[in-house]
């Protein structure tokens, strides 16, 4: 009898073990929400949720991990005790949160794309302004390397933006902005004197003196304003001719010595009418005048000019075209020069100033940039 009971018990233990083994090892299919949540997490990662909404993404991941732990716990239970309804709810909550996160990421990306777009447009406009300013100067190479590099960076930013690589696009925009700053500083350095009220005041007085001279003696006087690139002929205090001119490579600076390619500033006289000259007709000026000599000698004493460097000369108003670059002379289109040559007698006063207009176009641009 005892032997029979033992055999039955043994069989029961064996069967129970098999049942337990079967129940505990068998994995019932998880609810579809589980797979959907995992897929959603992959999508969120791909969309850059960890970058655009790191904190919320982290919370979402924790929630997902908790849901997965819940699923694991549930799977530990013997099949008949498993409740996938709760698992489904947990994962549904995760999916809901993920959906909200997806929207947030999309919104942030959209906002960032718009921000990049507007910064890029702003920088492109700035690049264009500085480009115009650079071309307006006599020496057109100032800042252009930086302007070109900035343009390349702006183009790159556009490409990266189109690929959805917003962070890289933003980096390129920052680089472009830095290059534009460099270009602007180079241009400003050239134009520093043109923003100085004292300097403008001094030029204004010189210009007024020239106009007064033409009025008082009813004589012809030439007034040149370098920044505006204008040559105006006055008679009796009235402007009777107005020509556009070209300057030297370094035309906006005041000439100090030979080879600096700058155009002198001050009061000069026409000392010779040259025809034919190298560039059509020409009016030779008496550069250097006394003031030029004084400045040159002072600079040499201070060691600012090497002993081998001379003061230079042969500064003319000549033809050849206003689009040209001179070594310091003033260039007019040939028909204008022909007319001027006929009009101007020897001894005519030629006053050359930087500018007389404190609100001229270039200064306005720089002031706008400053703001």
């Amino acid at each position, binding site marked *: 009898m005892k032997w029979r009971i033992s055999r039955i018990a*043994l069989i029961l233990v*064996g069967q129970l073990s098999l049942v337990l083994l079967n129940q505990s090892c068998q994995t019932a299919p998880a609810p579809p929400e589980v797979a959907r949540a995992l897929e959603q997490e992959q999508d969120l990662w791909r969309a850059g949720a960890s970058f655009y909404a790191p904190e919320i993404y982290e919370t979402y991941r924790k929630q997902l991990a908790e849901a997965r732990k819940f699923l694991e716990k549930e799977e530990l239970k013997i099949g008949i005790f498993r409740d996938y309804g709760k698992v489904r709810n947990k994962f549904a909550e995760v999916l809901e949160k993920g959906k909200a996160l997806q929207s947030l990421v999309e919104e942030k990306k959209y906002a960032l794309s718009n921000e990049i777009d507007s910064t890029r447009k702003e920088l492109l406009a700035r690049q264009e302004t500085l480009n115009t300013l650079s071309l307006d100067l*006599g020496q057109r190479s100032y800042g252009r*390397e930086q302007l*070109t590099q900035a343009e390349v960076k702006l183009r790159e930013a556009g490409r990266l933006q189109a690929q959805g690589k917003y962070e890289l696009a933003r980096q390129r925009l920052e680089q472009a902005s830095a290059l534009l700053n460099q270009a602007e500083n180079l241009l400003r350095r050239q134009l520093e004197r043109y923003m100085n009220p004292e300097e403008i005041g001094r030029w204004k007085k010189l210009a007024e003196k020239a106009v007064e001279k033409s009025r008082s003696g009813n004589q012809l006087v030439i007034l040149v304003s370098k920044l505006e690139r204008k040559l105006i002929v006055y008679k009796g205090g009235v402007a009777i001719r107005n020509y556009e001119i070209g300057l030297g490579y370094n035309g906006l600076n005041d000439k100090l010595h030979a080879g600096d390619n700058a155009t002198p500033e001050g009061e000069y006289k026409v000392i010779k009418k040259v025809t034919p000259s190298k560039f059509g007709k020409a009016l030779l000026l008496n550069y250097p005048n006394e003031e030029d000599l004084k400045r040159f000698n002072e600079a040499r004493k201070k060691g600012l000019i090497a002993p081998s460097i001379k003061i230079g000369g042969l500064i003319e108003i000549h033809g050849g075209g206003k689009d040209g670059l001179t070594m310091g002379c003033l260039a007019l289109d040939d028909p204008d020069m022909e007319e001027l040559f006929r009009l101007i007698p020897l001894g005519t006063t030629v006053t050359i100033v930087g500018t007389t207009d404190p609100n001229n176009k270039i200064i306005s641009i720089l002031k706008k940039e400053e703001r």
Partner: protein
Amino acid sequence: MKNLMKVSVLGLMVFFLFTSCAKQPTQQMDEAKAAIDAVVKAGGNIYAQDELKKLNDELQAAMDEINAQSKKLFKKYGPAKEMLAKVKADAEAVQALIPARKEEAKNAALNALNEAKAAFDEAKALLDKAPKGKGTKADIEAMKADLAGLESQLTEVQTAIDSEDYFGAKDKALAIKEKAAAVSEQVKAAIAKVKR
């Protein structure tokens, strides 16, 4: 008594039967992780981003399975081992894909660089041929400076290629090509201005 002993021994045998294979598959875990590390090292973060994420997820799923099994009375690591083996095999397959993708990206960057160089050389040659009269001197000076700016950008493309940033190099090269083409057009316009 004898029978009780028999039953106990049998019970213990059944217990050991189910728990004897309950050792965590540490070797497979290490191998799977090493295979993923190798993908990262080969540039997976750049050239196989999606695949790498998938591998990490698969590894995580395998680890979760191991974790779940470790809490069970009757542990069954067979499926986890299979998952880890799949991670390893997938990682090796992804790693094998990377050199070709890298090469493709490199070739695309080099092609873009060559195109940018060609566009730059064309602009430079045009500029060298441009009549340097008084009327074009200022324009030519400006365009020379533009090309000098582009030349330094070309150097940056090469630097990017040397540091294996092929996608960045390509984008930059294409931007340079566009600008060089724009300069060429400006040079042509300046030449036309002189001819008029």
